[in-house]
């Protein structure tokens, strides 16, 4: 995991020199926030390649996939945008730091402690695709660290393209690709219906490359240390490391960088109550279910899923995916149905309201789950929930209904015993405090989307 291991060694002054075999973690997260001086001392200057397209082969060999949730191969996006449009035409690159998933804190953390890695990555992809414009899209007001990083880089002439910062509205969908493009274009952060892909026609009609902030940080390191270095961690099919946001019983949320393939019990505890990891079988309520992939993710049953590892090949066996790395172990003393109902209410409230099925289906699903979380429910509600889930899936302009259905369906499976208890008017929970984090309030006006 993250503790104790080798930090990447300081960069050699000769560009293109021998690749450093700096395997081991942490790769992205330094022990303390690093300003530009510390960043340059450790990594050296941004390793521009001197020509467009040059980085694509290294990124392909590294097997880097997007860390924003979709895990799309980065080299394919790079190649697509590099190819698209006219040679001399406008092209746009966007670093997506919106982190609209309320339970995810990794991008915020990365942008605070290692903003220069992200900014290096942004400049490198800009060079690779031949961009004429660069944007950084952030969840909230830019923190002092990112502003200082940009100012310092400008002073040293490190950045070839000026970076425009835009703030995302606090909406769950604000980080969705086409919503970002709409917001950057001056409109509300509402998803659009694809086609066309943004790599063909994005911001202002120009080919647009959008990458998650963490993805760009990995890319900035691959550009220095090469694909073999990147593959020294992780699995053969899913190389590298990823940032995770971890929620455990009786612990504060934590951002941790983990090698892909790490057993989840290393990150989340093994669910038997020994949460402080000292082997004495005591120290906390333990967990009765895991949530992997955030609020569009999948609930996993314990102890069945206890052996699962943090890679999609393993997670797929339970219908799950790592997504943006949100991992939660639901304490045994909380009510899973109450948590799920709360999140479903949030997801429904965050619908863009543009597509009939999502607009009509998600609030009904949320109401149905609230009924299940109460004492006793109508028998009809189970069939209704399944019917509504089937009706909304795949019928929106974006994947909000699909992700919500994945979250809900897995919950209905994993918490089936609890549903039976609630039907009899009982509940296994002893602690009514909410566990999963959710923002307050719901959007009501157009301003809430800009």
């Amino acid at each position, binding site marked *: 995991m993250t503790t104790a291991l080798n930090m990447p060694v300081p960069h050699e002054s000769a560009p293109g020199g021998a690749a450093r075999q700096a395997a081991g973690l942490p790769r992205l997260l330094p022990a303390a926030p690093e300003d530009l001086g510390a960043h340059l001392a450790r990594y050296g200057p941004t390793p521009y390649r001197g020509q467009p397209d040059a980085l694509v082969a290294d990124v392909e060999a590294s097997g880097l996939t997007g860390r924003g949730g979709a895990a799309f191969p980065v080299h394919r996006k790079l190649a697509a945008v590099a190819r698209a449009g006219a040679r001399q035409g406008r092209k746009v690159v966007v670093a997506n730091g919106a982190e609209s998933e309320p339970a995810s804190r990794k991008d915020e953390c990365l942008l605070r402690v290692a903003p220069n890695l992200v900014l290096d990555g942004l400049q490198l992809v800009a060079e690779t695709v031949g961009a004429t414009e660069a944007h950084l899209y952030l969840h909230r007001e830019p923190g002092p660290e990112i502003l200082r990083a940009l100012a310092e880089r400008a002073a040293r002439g490190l950045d070839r393209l000026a970076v425009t910062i835009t703030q995302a509205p606090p909406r769950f969908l604000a980080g969705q690709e086409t919503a970002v493009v709409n917001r950057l274009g001056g409109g509300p952060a509402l998803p659009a219906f694809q086609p066309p892909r943004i790599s063909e026609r994005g911001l202002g009609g120009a080919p647009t490359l959008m990458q998650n902030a963490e993805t760009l940080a990995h890319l900035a390191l691959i550009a220095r240390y090469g694909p073999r270095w990147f593959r020294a961690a992780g699995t053969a099919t899913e190389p590298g490391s990823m940032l995770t946001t971890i929620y455990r019983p009786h612990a504060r949320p934590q951002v941790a960088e983990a090698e892909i393939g790490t057993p989840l019990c290393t990150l989340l505890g093994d669910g038997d109550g020994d949460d402080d990891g000292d082997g004495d079988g005591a120290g906390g309520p333990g967990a009765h279910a895991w949530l992997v992939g955030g609020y569009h993710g999948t609930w996993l049953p314990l102890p069945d899923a206890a052996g699962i590892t943090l890679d999609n090949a393993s997670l797929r066996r339970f219908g799950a995916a790592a997504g943006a790395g949100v991992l939660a172990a639901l304490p045994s003393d909380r009510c899973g149905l109450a948590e799920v109902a709360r999140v479903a*209410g*949030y997801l*429904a*409230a965050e*619908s*863009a*309201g*543009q597509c009939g099925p999502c*607009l*009509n289906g*998600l*609030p*009904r699903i*949320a*109401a149905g789950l*609230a009924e299940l979380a109460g004492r006793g429910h109508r028998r009809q509600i189970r069939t209704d929930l399944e019917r509504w889930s089937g009706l909304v899936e795949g019928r929106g302009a974006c994947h909000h209904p699909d992700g919500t259905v994945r979250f809900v369906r897995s919950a209905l499976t994993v918490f089936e015993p609890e549903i039976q208890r609630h039907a009899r008017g009982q509940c296994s929970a002893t602690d009514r405090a909410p566990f999963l984090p959710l923002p307050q*309030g*719901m*959007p*009501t*006006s*157009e301003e*809430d*989307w800009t």
Partner: protein
Amino acid sequence: MNTAFWYASRATGIVALLLLTAVLVLGILVNRQGRLPGLPRFAVTDLHRNLSLLSVALIVIHVLTAVLDTYVHIPLISAVIPFASGYERLWLGLGAVSLDIMLAMIVTSLLRGRLNRILWRAIHLLAYASWPVAFAHSIGSSKDLQQGWMLGLAVGCAMIIAAAVVWRLAHTARQVPRAGRVAAVFSQHTVTR
């Protein structure tokens, strides 16, 4: 012969005005997802479309017969170039304006599968301009419509259009804006957040 053309022109003009009134009302009905009793939804859209084509066909006859009537000289081109006629320059000019708009609407609608949706809609909204202009043309250029039962007919059409437009605008005023739609569905299903 001239008299026949003259009567034909007046007759087709009046029928066209009635049909155009129906077309605009049907168009508003389509937009509001209204139904004609006992008929499927596509009947409303098809009727709107077919009557609009019929109207333009009648207007073509209306124009040709007026041109062929040699009692007054009306150049054919003045049917589409506004204010190019010596005779009743203003009122015929308005007719030409209305017809131009109608032709643009018909052409874009015949191509509507291939056209940009926003462009199609922008042209189609000109219907709300075309009808009043056609109405003004009708009243101004025809002594028939300025008195008696024909005036009653024309005023009746205007009142029907006014009522339909008010109905359309009332809906726009009442319509929940996008950002409020989810909250509206929530309140119907008693989910509290």
